[in-house]
């Protein structure tokens, strides 16, 4: 008999819960009065949370600044944060933001998987999806309403391959994390490097969350490469790789993906191991005023970038300001905003100067960085 009671309690919870949240959600006032609602989708739990949370911090910081200085056209900006779990859960997040919160613009899909899962829903509802972190080439020109201010992967990898051949480094080893951005970067690099006659003598990969790279690195060491290209999704795994390289005595010219060495935590922890390491990053000119003030404010408020290289935080921070400019210029009509975004030229922000092309991809100039005694310098 008690089974029946339990059933009705459970059903009651589900029904009341559903009803209550349906009422509280859909009856929200139309967009004109009250705060401007903008959605946010990013990995807040699971393995990917280690770079999702700093992404959230950067967006929160920009929002607080905007609201402090009077908001957008006098209306406060309200960001609604949803967890995309770096995968298909982003579809539920997007559907909720659109149907319940009636957002017109969503900042996010941080992982490429989140953007790919949310895009069909946002495009169907004519909602702008602006991603500051998805790098998958599959997103290029995927929809009128999808733009991003984070470069697609192929660009830096091709430049690194060209740089290696110029420096005469013929036999190179690669170690890649099996995550969306890293795999795309590796593919672009290998194609270019072999086209230029380079010889890939070691090709190791590791799953997200691995902490013991010693045997893979021993294998690379046994091939005694001229250089090693380390492509991890987060500086945390790259720092471990470089430390364990030192542990097993693998001394070689280091190349990095994703501005990994830019993460200042790594520069503090293992400066001598990074000596001479070369990496590629969008020309985030640390000395530029907007960039410098952003970095200082961010580190003041959140102490470290945690797992995040500065470029991710910069693009997330800028995304909020880009949205603010768009709303101020074009109002809330998403079709007009979509065209506006595609005409964005030389927009100045924490990430430097940004231009968005016809496919919604950003044009980035790349700066080649090299690390000398713990300092980041431009390679001539």
């Amino acid at each position, binding site marked *: 008999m008690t089974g029946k009671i339990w059933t009705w309690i459970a059903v009651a919870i*589900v029904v009341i819960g559903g009803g209550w949240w349906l009422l509280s959600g859909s009856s929200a006032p139309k967009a004109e009065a009250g705060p401007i609602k903008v959605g946010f989708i990013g990995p807040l739990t699971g393995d990917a949370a280690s770079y999702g949370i700093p992404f959230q911090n950067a967006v929160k910081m920009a929002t607080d600044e905007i609201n402090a200085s009077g908001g957008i056209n006098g209306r406060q900006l309200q960001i609604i944060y949803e967890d995309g779990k770096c995968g298909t859960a982003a579809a539920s997040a997007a559907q909720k933001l659109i*149907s319940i919160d009636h957002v017109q613009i969503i900042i996010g899909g941080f992982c490429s998987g989140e953007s790919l899962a949310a895009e069909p829903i946002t495009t169907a509802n004519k909602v702008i999806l602006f991603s500051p972190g998805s790098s998958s080439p*599959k997103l290029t020109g995927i929809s009128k309403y999808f733009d991003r201010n984070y470069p697609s992967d192929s660009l830096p990898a091709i430049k690194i391959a060209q740089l290696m051949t110029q420096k005469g480094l013929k036999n190179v080893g690669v170690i890649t994390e099996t995550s969306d951005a890293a795999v795309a970067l590796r593919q672009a690099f290998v194609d270019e490097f072999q086209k230029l006659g380079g010889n890939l003598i070691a090709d190791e990969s590791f799953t997200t969350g691995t902490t013991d790279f010693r045997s893979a690195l021993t294998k690379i060491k046994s091939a005694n490469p001229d250089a090693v290209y380390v492509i991890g999704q987060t500086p945390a795994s790259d720092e471990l790789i470089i430390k364990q390289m030192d542990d097993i005595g693998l001394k070689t010219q280091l190349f990095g993906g994703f501005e990994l060495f830019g993460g200042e935590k790594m520069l503090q922890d293992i400066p001598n191991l990074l000596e001479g390491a070369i990496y590629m990053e969008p020309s985030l000119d640390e000395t530029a005023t907007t960039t410098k003030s952003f970095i200082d404010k961010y580190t003041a408020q959140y102490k470290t970038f945690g797992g995040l290289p500065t470029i991710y935080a910069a693009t997330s921070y800028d995304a909020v300001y880009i949205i603010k400019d768009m709303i101020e210029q074009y109002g809330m009509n998403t079709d007009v905003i979509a065209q506006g975004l595609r005409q964005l030229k030389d927009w100045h922000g924490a990430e430097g100067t940004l231009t968005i092309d016809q496919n919604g991809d950003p044009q980035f100039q790349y700066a080649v960085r090299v690390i000398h005694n713990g300092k980041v310098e431009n390679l001539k």
Partner: protein
Amino acid sequence: MEYLIHIAILVSIYSILGLSLNLVVGEAGLLSVTHAAFYGIGAYATALLLTESGMNFFLAMLIGMVITGAIALLIGAVLSRFDGDFYALGSLGFNVIVFSILLNWQSLTNGPLGIPGIARPSLFGFSFESNTSFLTLSLVLLALVWGICTLITRSSFGRVLHAIREDEQAIQVFGYTTTYYKLVIFVLSAMLAAVAGALFASYITFIDPSSFTVNESIFMLSIIILGGLASHRGAVLGAAFLIILPEALRFAGFPTDVAAQMRQVTYGAILILLMLYRPQGLLGEYRL
């Protein structure tokens, strides 16, 4: 309203998964922790067939079911030699292996990049583009799966499964080669999971390995444990509860930065409280 339909579609997909997993766990008493692997194989098979050859969704789903069934036959043949905790552990191992294949066999599955641009189903010219039409399709398939499961559990085959659950050696003495029964129900349950995989791939139009991990299998287990084992209504209620709960918790006003983790705490606490006070779940009658 769209959001409610979206939730209803997810609930029907997870109900299919719950019903099919219940055949193995609730009816035959075999704690399988590899259901997400078959969900994944079904999804990838259908997605690849749809994107590569552009065939009709339902044909792709059927082929996906056959492929999943074949792989389940191999895995089931190995698993039906284990029992108790070893069965659970062996099945967990197979889930990790299948996940690694989905993640690392990049030439076939695109690895972590996943497969985007999967077409929505269409039948005799009618395309299930809109969510409402997709919901009706999901509910029809759910009803079909429910029917198949009822047919199985009500038949003498189902009764033998219950006997295997209670005392496998005793029923063997009465002339039943229980390894065949365990294998057949394992393959049938995997094929039904492939249906859910096909629906999920076609609905979200993008799949990647991260939705077919061991955690997903554990989530499906908690659906039927919460809903109640060996009860079809329990499987559907469990799916509804555990899909709607995290969505409802989006509104529970946790501080934004810990909201996601608070959901995990609530979910874990529910599991503990269930086991302490109601191990047979809401509607179930079979205690684990």
